[in-house]
């Protein structure tokens, strides 16, 4: 099958007839629901751009499985160049949508599972990697979206999965059959789940003895009987029900998250990729998190590009573009944004080949990348609000602009530079509001903080890989701590000694 067009993708999601609930009601025509549709449009951009030659260097990759070009979101990274292009592709999509386009989580999940299933087979004699290879081939041949589902509700965070009062607070196996397993539980904060063809489930934390039923990874179609979705609210989401294009800020694109419930869902063995091998839960979590933390060095940068641009346009329209403090703030925003990009690129350049053959990012640098993402978008957003001015949150509603009496008044009193239509000034301010306080702030701010793991999760990984003993030895060596002072000598004899 050829690559899907955006239209074919949207129709394929409609054809799934997913069980989605929003604002207390089941939504049957979800692909046309005004709250949901912008998120579908954002996901569809991953298909749309792949059709255009001017974007295909980033959007497509050479599959080592099916021997032809595939959408990079279904690709198993074959080089550090692939890792770099992934980050650049995510930046591009952030620029084109100004929001979370949701498809990276599945790409990161399949790359983590690729190597973990291989390692599990080597250690345990299982056949997960063969199954997973066939599954990824299926994804590539059909150009499908896979949702990577990791985060369990977790209940009492002080207790292991098997020790919870309610056993369903971590997704688990409730029945093992000859033909497969039956699972129960839920996955929270599921980005793009309602726009996905497939759900790839992984455990959410390290497992210990007794947690075997919780150490599971599998894939299943998103419309498998027993799965349903409770759509997450976003700040200002009901503005999308008002029918306008101004107050929503970004009328075309948005992101979404959902609580995904598994109510005794059957999964055949061919789609099970981990089942009880508790020692591989932790590597799977760490590798998925590493890939996903590097992804944030692309997608958030692209959205940041939009926000910086919007702030610069707001300054233009206010007639203050040449003020030195305005220019300096734009420089600072750019510096922060490009620092994030640098981290995404660095952890990709420093990636390495795994035993399974795919490429993995540098774990330390990926965690440093995400740690910066937990901070810098907040400062970029603060500076954007600074440049936008208070009008961003005090301007009248779109309906007032259309009011016979109020419209001309708003045009007159909310004007900026005389050569700029007032409506254009208001549109760019609403876009900044959308990104910093509205529906897109879910992706740009809170997701930057908690997505792919909260800040402390990265600090734990950074501490583990800080190589502190090596640093201490470097300092001791130069300070002659605990060693007799060496005789005076040239610096090069020391260097030669170190190597051989």
């Amino acid at each position, binding site marked *: 099958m050829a690559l899907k067009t955006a239209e074919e993708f949207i129709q394929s999601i409609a054809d799934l007839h997913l069980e989605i609930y929003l604002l207390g009601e089941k939504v049957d025509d979800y692909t046309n629901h005004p709250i949901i549709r912008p998120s579908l449009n954002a996901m569809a951009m991953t298909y749309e751009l792949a059709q255009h030659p001017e974007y295909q260097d980033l959007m497509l990759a050479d599959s080592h499985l099916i021997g032809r070009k595939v959408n990079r979101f279904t690709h198993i990274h074959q080089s550090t160049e692939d890792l770099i292009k992934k980050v650049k592709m995510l930046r591009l999509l952030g620029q084109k949508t100004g929001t979370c386009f949701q498809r990276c989580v599945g790409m990161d999940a399949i790359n983590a599972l690729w190597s973990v299933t291989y390692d599990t087979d080597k250690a345990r004699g299982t056949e997960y990697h063969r199954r997973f290879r066939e599954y990824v081939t299926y994804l590539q041949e059909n150009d499908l979206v896979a949702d990577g589902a990791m985060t369990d509700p977790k209940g009492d965070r002080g207790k292991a999965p098997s020790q919870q009062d309610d056993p369903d607070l971590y997704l688990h196996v409730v029945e093992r059959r000859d033909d497969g397993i039956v699972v129960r539980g839920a996955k929270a904060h599921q980005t793009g789940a309602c726009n996905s063809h497939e759900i790839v489930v992984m455990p959410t934390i390290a497992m210990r003895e007794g947690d075997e039923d919780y150490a599971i990874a599998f894939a299943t179609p998103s419309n498998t009987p027993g799965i349903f979705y409770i759509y997450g609210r976003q700040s200002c989401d009901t503005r999308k029900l008002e029918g306008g294009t101004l107050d929503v800020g970004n009328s075309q694109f948005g992101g979404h998250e959902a609580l995904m419930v598994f109510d005794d869902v059957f999964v055949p063995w061919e789609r099970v990729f981990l089942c009880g091998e508790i020692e591989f839960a932790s590597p799977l979590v760490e590798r998925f998190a590493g890939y996903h933390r590097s992804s944030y060095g692309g997608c958030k940068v692209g959205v940041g590009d939009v926000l910086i641009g919007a702030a610069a346009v707001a300054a233009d329209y206010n007639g203050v573009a040449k003020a030195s403090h305005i220019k300096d703030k734009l420089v600072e925003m750019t510096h922060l944004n490009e620092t994030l990009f640098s981290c995404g690129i660095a952890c990709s350049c420093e990636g390495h080949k795994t*035993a399974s053959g795919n490429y993995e990012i540098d774990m330390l640098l990926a965690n440093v990348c995400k740690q910066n993402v937990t901070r810098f978008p907040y400062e970029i957003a603060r500076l954007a609000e600074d440049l936008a001015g208070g009008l961003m949150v005090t301007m009248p509603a779109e309906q007032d602009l259309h009011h016979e009496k109020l419209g001309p008044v708003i045009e007159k009193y909310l004007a900026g530079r005389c050569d700029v239509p007032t409506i254009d000034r208001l549109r760019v301010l609403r876009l900044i509001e959308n990104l910093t306080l509205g529906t897109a702030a879910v992706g740009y701010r809170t997701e930057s903080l908690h997505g792919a793991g909260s800040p402390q999760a990265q600090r734990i990984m950074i501490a583990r890989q800080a190589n502190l003993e090596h640093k201490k030895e470097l300092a001791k060596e130069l300070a002659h701590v605990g060693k007799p002072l060496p005789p005076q000598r040239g610096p090069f004899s020391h260097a030669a000694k170190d190597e051989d």
Partner: protein
Amino acid sequence: MKIVFCGGCNPTIDRTALAAELRAQPDLAASEATVYISGCARSCASEHASARDDPERVVVVAGETVDGLPVPAAALVAEIRRKLQGAADGLDT
């Protein structure tokens, strides 16, 4: 035995100690093997892989991994020995 090092910018293992330990074992030292020793998972040493290497007698150490699979630092020499003994005409056992 041929040993190829990475540049050593941020090693998580003691590369020179590992090399010394390998060379101290006569059968290993006399073998035709090539061991690429990198300080971390980036595996820069293996970028110097040569077409003249006998693939059956190549071992890649990258931080606490051997040929891509995790191995604790203290067990690296034993794992390298095990790998080379598994080669077609490997070490005497």
